[in-house]
C-alpha cells in the first residue's frame, strides 16, 4: 500500500512536469511555429503605447530572445526556486512556486492565484456538494421509480441542464431570479470567516447554477449505475436476508453505483477548482476562472501559464485523491494492485 501511494505520488509529479512542458510548448513554441517573431510576441505584452525601447525591454524581461530550452529552464527554475524581477528601483523577489509575473496587472501570478483561491474554492466545493447530493438523490429515485413520471421529468431536466450552456442559464437566472423576481440576492463573494451567512447567500445562485449543470450528469450516471447494480446477485442476497427495501437500495445498491462516480467527481472537482471559468464570468466572481479569462483576453502569458498549471495541479491532485480513495471504497481494487 505504502509503495502504491509512493508510486502514485511519483507518477503525479512526473505528470505535472509533462503538463508543464506541454503548456510551455503550446504557449511559447506554437506561436513561433505559426510565424510570430520575437518582436511581435513582445509587442503583445507591452501595453497600449509600445515604444521600440519598451519592446526590447519586454523581450529581455521575458527572456524571449533566449533559446527555447533556456526559456523553459527559467520557467521551471522559477517554479522550483523562485525568481527575481526588477521594477523601478525595486527588485521583487518572486518566491518559490513562482509561476511568473504578470506584465499587465503587475502582480506575481502565484499570490494572485492564492488570493482568488477562496472564491473559487467556495464556489467549487459548495457546488460540488450540492450537485453530488442532488444528482445522486435524483438518480436513486429515478432508478427506483424507473419509468415513472418523476423519472421522466427529472431525466428530461437533466438533459436540459446538460444541453444549456452556463452562460445562458446563468444570465437568465440573474435577469429573472435576481433582478425581476427578487428571489435570490445578488451573487457576491463574502469571505466565510467574515460572515458565513452572507457567504452562503451570496454564493447561493452560482452554486445552484453550477450544480444544476453538473448534477444532471450525476443523476444520469447514478441512475444507470443503480439500474445495473439493482440487477446484481448480491442485491437478491440482501433482500433474502429480509432487509428493508430502503436499506437494500441505500446500503447495498448505491455504494457500488457510486464507485465509478468517484472518478468523475474527482475530475470535475479538480476542473472546477482550477477555475469555473464561465460561472465566475457570468456572476462576476473574482476567482481563478475569471482571472484566467481576463488574462486570455489581455494575452497575459505568465498568468495563462500559471493558471493552466495550477488547474492541472488540482486535477492531478484530485485524481490522486481518487486513486488513493478508491481502494478504501472498493476493496477489490486493493487486491488488484
Amino acid at each position, binding site marked *: 500500500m505504502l509503495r502504491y501511494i509512493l508510486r502514485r505520488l511519483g*507518477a503525479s509529479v*512526473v*505528470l*505535472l512536469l*509533462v*503538463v508543464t512542458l*506541454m*503548456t510551455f510548448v*503550446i*504557449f511559447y513554441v*506554437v*506561436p513561433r511555429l*505559426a*510565424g*510570430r517573431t520575437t518582436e511581435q510576441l513582445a509587442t503583445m505584452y507591452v501595453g497600449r503605447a509600445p515604444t521600440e525601447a519598451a519592446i526590447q525591454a519586454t523581450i529581455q524581461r521575458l527572456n524571449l530572445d533566449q533559446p527555447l530550452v533556456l526559456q523553459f529552464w527559467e520557467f521551471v527554475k522559477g517554479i522550483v526556486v523562485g525568481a527575481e524581477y526588477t521594477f523601478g528601483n525595486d527588485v521583487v523577489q518572486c518566491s518559490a512556486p513562482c509561476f511568473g509575473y504578470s506584465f499587465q496587472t503587475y502582480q506575481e501570478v502565484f499570490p494572485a492565484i492564492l488570493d482568488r483561491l477562496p472564491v473559487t474554492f467556495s464556489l467549487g466545493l459548495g457546488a460540488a456538494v450540492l450537485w453530488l447530493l442532488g444528482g445522486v438523490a435524483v438518480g436513486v429515485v429515478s432508478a427506483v421509480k424507473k419509468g415513472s413520471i418523476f423519472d421522466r421529468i427529472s431525466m*428530461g431536466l437533466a*438533459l*436540459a441542464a*446538460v*444541453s*444549456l*450552456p452556463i*452562460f*445562458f442559464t446563468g*444570465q*437568465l437566472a440573474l*435577469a429573472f431570479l435576481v433582478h425581476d423576481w427578487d428571489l435570490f440576492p445578488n451573487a457576491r463573494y463574502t469571505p466565510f470567516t467574515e460572515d458565513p451567512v452572507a457567504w452562503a447567500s451570496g454564493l447561493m445562485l452560482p452554486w445552484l447554477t453550477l450544480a444544476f449543470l453538473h448534477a444532471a450528469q450525476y443523476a444520469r450516471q447514478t441512475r444507470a449505475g443503480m439500474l445495473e447494480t439493482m*440487477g446484481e446477485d448480491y442485491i437478491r442476497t440482501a433482500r433474502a436476508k429480509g432487509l428493508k427495501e430502503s436499506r437494500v437500495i441505500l446500503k447495498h445498491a448505491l455504494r457500488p453505483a457510486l464507485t465509478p462516480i468517484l472518478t468523475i467527481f474527482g*475530475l470535475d472537482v*479538480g*476542473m472546477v477548482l*482550477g*477555475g469555473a*471559468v*464561465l460561472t465566475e464570468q457570468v456572476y462576476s466572481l473574482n476567482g481563478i476562472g475569471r482571472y*484566467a*479569462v481576463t488574462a*486570455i*483576453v489581455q*494575452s497575459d502569458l505568465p498568468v*495563462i501559464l500559471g*493558471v*493552466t498549471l495550477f*488547474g*492541472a495541479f488540482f*486535477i*492531478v491532485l484530485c*485524481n490522486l485523491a481518487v486513486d488513493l480513495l478508491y481502494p478504501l471504497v472498493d476493496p477489490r481494487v486493493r487486491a488488484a494492485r
Partner: protein
Amino acid sequence: MTAPLDAPESAQHAEPEAIARGRRDTESRSLTQIAWRRLRQDRVALGGGAFVALLILVAVFAPLLTAWFGHPPNQFHQDLIDPATQGVLKDPDDPWSGIDPTGGMSAEHLLGLEPVNGRDLFSRIVYGARISLLVAFLSTLLCVVIGTVLGIVAGYLGGWVDTVISRAMDIFLAFPLLLFAIALAGVIPDDAFGLSDNALRIAVLVFIIGFFSWPYIGRIVRGQTLSLREREFVEAARSMGAGTGYILFREILPNLVAPILVYATLLIPTNILFEAALSFLGVGVNPPTPTWGGMLSESLAYYTVAPHFVIIPGLAIFVTVLAFNLFGDGLRDAFDPRSSD
C-alpha cells in the same frame, strides 16, 4: 406419493436434441436485428433519431431551404427594425409602434428577425446548423478515432504501451481544455496548412476539441478492451493463429461499437456546446457566418428587446442535444444484450 405425477403428453417420450437446441425461436434474430427491432419500438429514441436525420438534411439543404423561403442568411431587413431600441418593430410602417415581443414572427419570417439589422432568424438557424453540426461531427469523429485506436491498443497490449498511453490520457485530462482551446485558437494565424478563413478556424476548432477530448473515449475503450481481452474468444482467435491486428480490429472492435456509438452520440452535443462556449469567449468562426453558439452568446446582450433571439438558438441547441441524447440512450438500450426487450 410414489407414482409419477400426471405426465403431459409432450413429456412422454424423450427428445434430447430438442432440449439441447432449446428451440427458442424468439431469439433467432441477429443482435443488430434485435437492436433494430427494439429501437423501432422505442418511440422516443426513434423520434430523436428522426430529428437528428432531419437536422442533417436541413444543414445539407440549407441553401435550398433559404432559397425557398426567400431570405439569404445575411440579408438585412433594417426597415423592420427600430433603430433606437434595435428591436423588431410591431408595425414596420410606424416607427413609434414599439417592439414586437415575438420578434417579428410571421409567415414571411418564420422565426422572426435578429435585432439590429433584421436578418431572418430562420435562415440563420438553418445555416447555423451547418457549422455547429460540422464542428460537432468532425471533432467527435476525430476524438472517436484517436480514442478508439489508442484505447484499444493500450487495453490489449498492456505493459509499457498501456502505461505510456494511459499516462498520456491522464495528461490530456489534466489540461483545462477550455483555456487551452482559447489560447491555441488565439495564436493560430489566418492562413495555415493551406486553409484560410473559416475553413481554418473550423479546422482549428475541430482539432482542439478532438485532440483534447479523446482521452474520455480512450478510457472507456481501454476499460472495455481490458475486460474483452480476458474473454476466451480472444484467446481462441490467438489459438487459430490470428495476428494482433486481426484480433484488435476484427474480434475486439465490433464488440466496442455499441459503447463507442453511444458515447459518440453523447459527445456530439457536448461539442456543439463547446463551439458555443468558444464563441462566447470570442474565438469562433468569422462573422457574418452564423453558428448557434455564436447567436446564443450574441443574443444575451439583447435579451430585453429581443427575447426570441435568446430563446430560439437556445432551443435549437437544447432540442438537438435532447434528440442526440434520446437517440443515444435508445441505442445503448437497444444494443445492451442484458436489457430484456
